[in-house]
Structure formats: C-alpha cells, structure tokens
C-alpha cells in the first residue's frame, strides 16, 4: 500500500470497509508523509501522532466488532482555531502559544464520535486574519504547487495539507473567504456552509456575524460526507440554526438539467486576471453542457463588499479579542507595573501586526463620533449587498464566478500593503455578508497554478452546491491533479 495518500476520503472509506488496509496502517502512512514533507510546507502547528495512532487502533477495534461511525478510522486535520481537549490550540498566535484547551469544539467532538482520526492541528493566519497565511506566529505555509508562493489564507495549512496529500481532508473556517480562497489557490475543494449551519462552539471567534466552519477536501463527495457529520443544531452555540440536515451524499447524483446559474456581471471587470477569467468561463460552459442554464445577473452593490467587510469584521474582532487580557489564559507580559500595564503589554506583545491593526480599525469605527459614519453605514450597505443576492436568487439556483482575482501570489508580495491583500477576497466576501453557503471547486490552471470556480447558493442549500461541484468533477479532472513534488 504505497499509494494510500493519493486516495480521497471516500476511496479510503471503501478500502477500510473492504479490509484492504487498517486505520493504523493508513494513519502511520500519513504521519510518515507529514514527517517527510511538513518541514518544507509548514502546514502543521502540532502533529498529534500518538493520539492519532491510539484513535486509529480504537477505530480498527470498533470495525472488527461491527461498530463504528460514519468516519470510522478516517484521518483528518483540524484547523488550529478549533479547541481540542488536552491539545495545544493556538489560533496561529503567540497569544495562545501556551493554551491547552480544556474542552473540545462541537465539530471536533462530533467528528471524533463518528470515528475520525485527528493527525494534527493546521497552521493558519493569526486569529484567521489574513489571506496569505503570512500573519501566523508559526511562519507562513508554502503552496505545494510552488513553494515560493502563498497557499492563501487564513486556512492555508488546511489547504496545503490536503493539496500535498498529507491528509485527505481538513476542517477550516471562513469569515471573508478563508476556506474558499486557499482551496482555489491550492487546487482543492472548500465549502463554507450557511451561517449557523455548523456549530461554532469551541471555534475561536473572529467576527461573529460572519464566521462559519467548513471543510477542505479533494472532492465534492468527501465534503458532503464530512458536512453530514458536522452540520446540525447545537444548543451550545447561540447562533446555531435548527434546520434539518439533508443527506448531502445522497443528493450528489441528481442531474443539473434545468439548473439556473447566475453569472455576476460585476465579477468579470478589470480586477480579474484574464486567464483566471477564461478558466471561470470555461467552467461555466461545462455546467451548461451538463444541462444548466447560465444567465447574467446584476449586483449593483457588490463592489462595496470589501469596504463593508473591513468595517464590520474589525469592529466585531475588536470586541471578541478583548477577552485576551493576560489574566485568565494566554500570553502574559513579564513584570507588569500595574493592571493597565499588564493588559496593554500582554496584548501589545501577544498579538501580531495584522491582528493589532484590525483591533484598532474596529476600535476606531466603533468609537464615539465615528460609529454612525462607519459601523452603522456599513451595516446598512451590508443590507443592500444581501438584497443583491436575494434579488438574484429569485431567478437563479446558484451564482457562479471566479473564487479569486488571480492564482497564488508570491510570499511577501502583498504583506506590506493591507488594501491589496484585502482585495484578494473581493469575490468571496459577499457570501459571508449575506450568510449564504458557497464553495470553490478546482477549475483549471493558469501558468501551472490552480484556480477555482466559486458557487454561491440559497440559504441552507449546500446540497445544490455540492451536486453542482460533483457533476463538474465527473467530467473534468482538475480536482485530481497533484503537485509534482508531492505525488
């Protein structure tokens, strides 16, 4: 069994079921790959080898006894934003470098109960604030397709691990594009479900009206499998929505006949790289060849997504991150003079530049005299943008376009210019502002680098997005492409 790492989660599930290999063999094979490649990629903050092998043994024993859940024995990686009991949970920050979580996030608990084996915790932009993984306290993750380039962010470690075949799947989170953008830039599939679809209990908060948990995989079927376990009501998350969870895997086979795909006029303007736009149009043509009907839709306010987001998200982050005070958990500055000095130095030394910048932006837009001009105004524009989507969804089932304006950029290229970095998420942010589910599926290459097709769906209609991506994958091979150095 020298090719286990190349298989998708669904293929591995079949192999375990057939007894072709054990979960211990599979887990050891992937731990060996992580050992061989992660020094290069830096996709992991923590590798939990002993715990993984113990979990794999339990899964094998359960299978032998005719038991075991939907993910029994299948290895995954958790983004280091999810609390894992007894395991360091850093959120990519010096602030939490010493934090060992006393409890499991709901999705960690649910996936473990289904038999998943956790290989480790994935590197990420600090507190999920970044689009390149360069803001991580643990250093940038490298893109497996070109080690001089960024894998995107903030879920860069999750995306790189899946793309480099160090794990078949990884959890991730998305506040403005943090699942979909790295998925596009690494040739993987990433889905951000509807706001409230997946529990955020134990997921370290960034911007609470936008954050949502999802997965990065190498196929739509794998994402459907995992989402079926992760999704659903959780009373411990006050924003969790009590809606039934459909059979995502069962819905995959349905044809795309008559499906109406909206193509946003504003997403094909001068900001889009020509080749990336060409790949997107080719992908939409493939959907049409499968029976879908593409129509142009107009979203007059969508261009204001990024400035709206950069008021709302920092405002919420400045509030959420006030919990880091150097007293109850996290980094504490040495020898504080008084309580104020303890707070200010612990936060000044514990947070990195981008996180401090966003806290300050948020503090500014919420401060007396500026609240109406910025925060209130942004919440109004947010309504206009959400209405743009709602109007479009009166006529179409999904909205399709590019995930990113360009393929992966070079590490260091945008790190000194926050606005250029922020504009990376120009096509993905709208779905967060409106709470809509969205995914990115690999749709080809630009100069040897992968790009993604972005699909946005109606609230709680993840099934249609997965069905679209699955149908697309049945007639294309982009999602199976593996970076040469990691075959």
């Amino acid at each position: 069994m020298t090719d286990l790492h190349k298989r998708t989660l669904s293929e591995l599930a079949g192999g375990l079921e057939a007894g072709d290999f054990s979960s211990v063999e599979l887990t050891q094979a992937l731990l060996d790959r992580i050992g061989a490649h992660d020094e290069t990629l830096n996709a992991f903050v923590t590798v939990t080898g002993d715990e993984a092998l113990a979990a794999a043994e339990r899964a094998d024993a359960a299978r032998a006894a005719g038991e075991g859940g939907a993910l029994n024995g299948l290895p995954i990686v958790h983004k280091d934003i999810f609390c894992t009991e007894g395991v360091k949970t850093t959120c990519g920050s010096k602030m939490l470098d010493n934090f060992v979580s006393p409890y499991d996030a709901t999705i960690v608990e649910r996936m473990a109960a289904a038999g998943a084996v956790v290989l480790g915790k994935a590197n990420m932009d600090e507190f999920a604030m970044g689009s390149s993984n360069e803001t991580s306290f643990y250093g940038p993750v490298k893109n497996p397709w070109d080690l001089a380039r960024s894998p995107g962010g903030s879920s860069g470690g999750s995306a790189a691990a899946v793309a480099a075949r160090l794990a078949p799947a990884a959890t991730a989170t998305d506040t403005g594009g943090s699942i979909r953008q790295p998925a596009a830039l690494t040739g993987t599939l990433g889905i951000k479900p509807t706001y409230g679809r997946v529990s955020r209990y134990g997921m370290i908060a960034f911007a609470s009206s936008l954050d949502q948990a999802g997965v990065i995989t190498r196929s739509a079927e794998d994402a459907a499998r995992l989402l079926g376990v992760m999704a659903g009501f959780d009373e411990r998350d006050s924003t969790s929505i009590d809606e039934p969870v459909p059979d995502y895997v069962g819905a995959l086979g349905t044809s795309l006949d008559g499906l109406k795909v909206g193509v946003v006029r504003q997403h094909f303007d001068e900001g889009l790289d020509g080749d990336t736009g060409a790949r997107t149009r080719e992908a939409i043509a493939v959907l049409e060849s499968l029976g879908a009907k593409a129509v142009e839709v107009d979203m007059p306010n969508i261009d204001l997504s990024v400035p709206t987001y950069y008021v709302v998200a920092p405002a919420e982050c400045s509030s959420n991150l006030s919990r880091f005070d150097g007293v109850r958990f996290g980094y504490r500055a040495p020898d504080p003079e008084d309580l104020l000095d303890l707070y200010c130095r612990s936060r000044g030394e514990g947070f990195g530049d981008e996180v401090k910048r966003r806290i300050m932006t948020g503090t500014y837009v919420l401060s007396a005299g500026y609240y109406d001009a910025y925060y209130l105004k942004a919440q109004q524009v947010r309504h206009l943008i959400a209405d743009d989507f709602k109007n479009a969804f009166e006529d179409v089932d999904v909205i399709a376009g590019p995930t990113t304006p360009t393929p992966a950029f070079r590490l260091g290229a945008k790190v000194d210019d926050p606005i250029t970095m922020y504009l990376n998420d120009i096509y993905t942010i709208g779905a967060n502002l409106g709470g809509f589910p969205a995914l990115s599926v690999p749709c080809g290459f630009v100069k040897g680098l992968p790009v993604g097709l972005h699909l946005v769906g109606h609230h709680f209609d993840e099934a249609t997005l997965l069905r679209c991506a699955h149908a697309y994958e049945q007639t294309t091979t982009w999602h199976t492409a593996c970076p040469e150095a990691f075959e």
Partner: protein
Amino acid sequence: MSLDKDQVQQIATLARLKLSDDEYAESVEKLSRIVDFVDQLSQADTSGVVPMAHPLNVAQRLRPDVVTESNERNRYQENAAAVTDGLYLVPKVIE
C-alpha cells in the same frame, strides 16, 4: 494621512494595546490607508435602509435561566499565568 499620531495613540489606549514607536509610525500610515479605503462607503445611498445585524435576520435564541455548567474552576485555571486559592492573580489594584 486621515489619522494622526494622537488619534492612533487614543485608539491604542482604548484598545488596550501598547505599541512601540516604530509600530506607531507604521500604524498611522496603514490605518490611514484602511480608513481612506472604507470611506468609499459614504458614497452609497442608504437612506431608509435598515442596518443588518444578523445575516439571516433572525433573533438570537434564548435559553431558560438555569444552571447548566458544572464547576470546572481548577481545570480552567490550569491555563492561567498566576492563580492562588482559586483566584486569578494580577498586580495590586488598590494601595
């Protein structure tokens, strides 16, 4: 520059962040660019538009006001920098 050093100092104080002199210089420049960037929102006509606080426009769910958690103080305090007798320790607040 839409923000000056005094304003950034005031923001950092409100946010409880101690910055170095170099960080101040950089923050004035970068925060000004961010503020200039988000200023384009002022062009949008939002008269009569209700601010959107929740993406699905639903009200926050409430639960009955009953105790649901067990006392895990000792376990939670394992992550604290300084505790004694179940209390978190900070520098002296009252002389």
